[in-house]
Every structure is written in structure tokens, then in C-alpha cells.
């Protein structure tokens, strides 16, 4: 059974439209996903694509406007108050900016101890302290770090504390929202290795949100690609990155910097910026920026269709073999 099953999840926000009217902005649009225990699902997309809103809705930090979220068989949207709080220990969130997500006035040991006490996982100061030190060890921090304040730690160490805090309630799922984007490459490599080790030891499921395709390819077995709140492509990571089928995914993959000195930039497969989520044209949301768009793309909404085993894309031209299979020049060497 899957650990997390999200079906047709949407999130609408009311935004001001003129002085007195409000209209709905759909930040996440009918997203479905599935995550098994001990597996990692990558969520990829540019800023404003709805990645973080999706994570917050999945973890019930915001209530979805429609759709269902089932965690380990339990429908979370039906839970409220105490029942939901009881469930929360099983799914945790780690944010992008560790400096902003840790309480600056609390010693980091106290931050990690808080969920242990709150959920009654250990009783007595000695037992809690022992557990905190054990958690610190498991994320590669020594007991000397327990008494420090966040500003006394480096960015990498702060993010390790944030992971220890998430692990404190022995969760089964962790949503990682750009966990390494604020870190240097060498620190990032160490943190990604740590996350992989923890997953192996504890059987954690990861919902791994990132705009960095290289990082996602190192972490996730499966990926979904979001564009303006909709899933435009999903599939196994290696297959999806080697043979992207949606023009947007092709553009994203092509735009990743490579180690080819002075490579010819024939890789600009998309220009401009995503449109507004408020402008709801009937057709494909990517059509205004798509190199391959036709009249049908502008008229007809797209749904995910199969383009290989376990690989689906929301582009009719790709499904019907009307696109060059790898865009203009997307082939990744090696």
C-alpha cells in the first residue's frame, strides 16, 4: 500500500480583483501523486509553479480546496483538531531556509526536544536529553552543538538541526522543500548523502521539492513536473530526464548548465515568463510560451496521457508523435 496517495488535489486562493470583487487563483490544479514507503518523489518546477503550496496542502498546513490526501490509508481531509494533531507526527516538513525556520531565541537542542515532549515520545528530562543527543548524532552533529543558538551554527549545520527536529517525532514521511538550495555545493553534497543514509536506515518516504534537476536526479526515483499548478509530465527520474516528452520539461532539462566550455546556446527552448495563474485560457497552460503550439493547443485543455511504461505527459503533440522526441537538442551526454 502506498504511504501517501494524493488524488485530484486543488488549492484556490481568493485574490482581490478591483476594489470590491474577489476572484479565485488556482495555485494547485488537480494534482495526483503516489509515494511508497522508503521512496522519494521529486517535485520539479520553477518559482510560482505551486510546488510549495502542494507540499503544504499535502501536509495539511493549508487545507486543500478539493481532492483527497490519504496518508497510510487515512483520509487526512476528514481529520480535524486533536485527531489531525495526532497524525502530524508521521509527516514532517523541512524548509529551504534553515536560519528562518529555527527559533533564533531557542537553543537548537530545545527546538529538537519540543516535538518529543509535545507528542509524549519520551518522559523525563534525562530521557529527552538522551534522545536529542541521539538525534544530533544521527544527523552528524556532536553533543556540543545541543546548547548552541542557531546563529552560532553554519547553514549546513542549521539544516541538519532542522532535519533532526523533523526526525524527532519518528515520522514516516518528510517533505523537503528546497532543502539544499541555500547551501554551498560541498555542503549540499554532504547533506544529500545524509538524507539518503537516513532514508535507508529509517525507511522514510521523501517528497523532495526542488527547482534543481541535478539534485532531483540524485535523490528521486520518480518525478512530477509542475507548470502553473498542473502536472505536465511524470515518470521515472532517469527516463524523464533522459527523454523528456513535454516541451516544458525539455526546456527545463536543456537549460541546466553543463560542463561544456562555451557550449553553443542552442538550448533556449523557452523564453519569457510563465503567465499569470489568474488568466485562465481554455487550452494548454504552456501554449503561450511553447515553440510547438498549434491552434489545437490553445483550444483544448491537456490531460496526462501515457507515453511509455509509467511515463505520462500532458501534451497531445508529444503523445501523438508530432514532436521531435527530444526537442531540439536535449540529449544529455553520458
Amino acid at each position, binding site marked *: 500500500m502506498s504511504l501517501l496517495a494524493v488524488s485530484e488535489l486543488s488549492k484556490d486562493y481568493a485574490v482581490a480583483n478591483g476594489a470590491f470583487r474577489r476572484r479565485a487563483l488556482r495555485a494547485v490544479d488537480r494534482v495526483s501523486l503516489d509515494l511508497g514507503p522508503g521512496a522519494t518523489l521529486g517535485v520539479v518546477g*520553477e518559482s510560482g509553479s505551486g510546488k510549495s503550496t502542494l507540499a503544504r496542502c499535502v501536509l495539511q498546513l493549508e487545507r486543500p480546496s478539493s481532492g483527497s490526501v490519504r496518508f497510510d490509508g487515512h483520509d487526512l481531509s476528514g481529520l480535524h483538531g486533536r485527531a489531525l494533531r495526532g497524525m502530524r507526527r508521521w509527516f514532517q516538513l523541512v524548509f529551504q531556509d534553515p536560519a528562518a525556520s529555527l527559533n533564533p531565541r531557542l537553543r537548537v537542542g530545545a527546538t529538537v526536544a519540543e516535538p518529543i515532549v509535545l507528542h509524549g515520545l519520551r518522559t523525563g528530562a534525562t530521557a529527552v536529553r538522551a534522545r536529542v543527543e541521539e538525534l544530533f548524532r544521527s544527523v552528524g552533529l556532536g553533543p556540543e552543538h545541543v546548547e548552541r543558538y542557531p546563529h552560532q551554527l553554519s547553514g549546513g549545520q542549521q539544516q541538519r538541526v532542522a532535519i533532526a527536529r523533523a526526525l524527532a517525532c519518528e515520522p514516516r514521511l518528510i517533505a523537503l522543500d528546497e532543502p539544499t538550495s541555500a547551501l554551498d555545493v*560541498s555542503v*549540499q553534497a554532504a547533506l544529500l548523502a545524509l538524507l539518503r543514509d537516513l532514508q535507508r536506515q529509517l525507511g522514510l518516504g521523501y517528497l523532495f521539492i526542488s527547482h534543481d534537476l541535478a539534485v532531483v536526479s540524485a535523490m528521486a526515483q520518480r518525478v512530477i513536473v509542475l507548470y502553473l499548478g498542473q502536472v505536465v509530465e511524470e515518470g521515472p527520474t532517469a527516463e524523464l530526464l533522459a527523454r523528456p516528452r513535454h516541451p516544458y520539461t525539455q526546456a527545463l532539462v536543456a537549460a541546466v548548465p*553543463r560542463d561544456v566550455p562555451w557550449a553553443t*546556446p542552442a538550448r533556449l527552448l523557452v523564453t519569457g515568463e510563465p503567465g499569470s495563474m489568474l488568466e485562465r485560457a481554455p487550452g494548454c497552460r504552456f501554449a503561450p510560451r511553447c515553440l510547438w503550439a498549434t491552434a489545437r493547443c490553445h483550444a483544448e485543455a491537456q490531460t496526462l496521457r501515457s507515453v511509455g511504461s509509467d511515463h505520462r505527459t500532458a501534451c497531445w503533440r508529444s503523445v501523438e508523435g508530432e514532436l521531435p522526441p527530444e526537442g531540439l537538442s536535449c540529449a544529455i551526454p553520458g
Partner: protein
Amino acid sequence: MRGRPPAAGPLLSIRGLDVELAMPRGSGRVLAGVDLDVDAGEVVGLVGESGCGKTLTALSVLRLLPAAARITAGAVCFQGRNLVTAREDEMRGVRGRGIAMIFQAPRESLNPVLTVGRQLELVLARHHRLGGPRRRARAAELCAMVELPDPARVLRAYPHELSGGMCQRAMIALALACRPALLIADEPTTALDVTVQLEILVLLRRLRETLDLALLLITHNLGLVAEVCQRVAVMYAGEIVETAPVADLFSAAAHPYTRRLLEARPRIGAPPAGEPIPGSVPDPLARPVGCAFHPRCHRVQPRCRQAHPEPEATAARVVRCFYPEVASS
């Protein structure tokens, strides 16, 4: 407009630059003997992790260091003049007209209460004393040069009405308003999405060619360096540890730090990277004796703990290491 002196030697030449930073706990050397050259029309990458001194190097060149930082030794020669000893009114002529700089957060670097057009016109009025109609024409011309879509709308827009990519283009237009010979770009694409990042890089490459602009690109992203730069300088703990043509650096990094930094990058389709670099960047108040990198180096020898390596040049490469990696990897 002032003519540029004939191309004798590099456009910008930094030699033995030392900067001290006063901190509550004491004062420490944050730049230690930095040597860096940028030729006219050349694109040089300055890479390193946060806190290694990339931005301080750039700010030293423009003499825009924060009050707590002080240049204690060295020279910064730009177009034959030493900027370290230049008078403040001379520096005002260099900033903008000789050397311009753009920053990581484009929206925060623009004035939020003035339209983009007004900001461009202020620069043109201050530096070129152009009259109204000619100023407006030049502002529109600059917008076209940085390929801003719908220039008329952008000139009337406030920064908050523009996307991050458009703000960065507006910043570049401002920086180029006085036709500088050198543009320093400090993490110009870090806050942008990958597709927008690529557009900005393509623009910077094109501007370099059409305007004969030299570019010093400061970044932590080695992939960008490969794509845009001709030469790369790698910084660690306030020192340049390796300088090499970009192809040489990527095919055979000589300094152990460069090598580990290259290995640490995640790459699409490549297996997860090898060993991370242990430990962290040294505290400027407690610089290690000997080589600054030795506490974290996997190839450390007794000599590295005692003596400080000097930069050694071989062909086009300069390395600050007693035991550089050999060419084959």
C-alpha cells in the same frame, strides 16, 4: 567621452590584495594576497563557496567596502591607475563609467519608488549631462540592448511590477548606461529560474561580444562558469588557490580543493558524487598555519601544515599548492 588607454597589460590587475575586517571578536584577514587579472573583453569567473571573499574582492575593486573592512596591502590597477590610492572624486569617475556592478537580488538593488525609466535617466543625467529628449532616447536604446520586451511599458514600470528576470535586465541596462569597460556581475542569476538564468547568460555573452565588455562573473555555480567564462579563478578562505583557462580547469583541476568542488556537484544522469569535503571553511580569526586548505585536504603532507604555499605558475595555470593533482584523473 574619455578615450581608453592603449591595451598595455590587463584592463584590471589586482596584486597582493589584503583586506582586514574588524569583527566584535577581533580583526581578521578576510582577503590574503589576492592576485587577479582581467583583460579587455575577457570573461573571468571568480568561484568559491560563501564567505570565501568573492564579493569582498569585487567591493575592494570599486572601493565600496563596508566600514568595518579596510584594504591593508596590495594594488588594484584599472586602466593604468591604482584605485587603492585614488582620491574619492577620482573613484566616482571610475564607478559606473569604468567599472559597473550588478548584484544577486535585482529587485532589491533597484529603487522601489522610481520607475525604471526614471532611474536610467538619473544615471544618464548625472554622468553624461544629456538633455531630456536625448536622455529618453538613450534609455529606450539601453532597454532594447538588454532585450527587454515592450521597452515603453518597462520604462514606465516600477520594479515591483516586473519579474525577476526583467529586473535583472533593467539592472544590466543601468550598469551599461555609462559604457563601462568592465562589468562585475555578483551572482547575477542565483535568484532566477533555470530558463531565465540561461536567457540572462546568453544576453551577457552577446553583450560582451557587441560591446567589447570585460566581465568578472562571481558565482558559486561551476556549471555557469563553464558556459560563460574563458578563465576561472577559484577562491578559498580569502586566497586565490587556482587560476586556469576554463577548459583546463574542468578537464584537470590541479588544486585539491578545486578537484573536490568539481566532484561535489550533482549532475543529471551522473551517479551521486563522491566523498564530501570534510569540515568547514576556517574562521578568519583563526587562519590555519601553513596552507589554508590543509585541515580539509585529503592529500595533506607534513609540509602543508608548516609552510604557506605561494602561487606557482605553469603555462596558463597558477596553483597555490605544494602537491597539486597530476593531469590525469
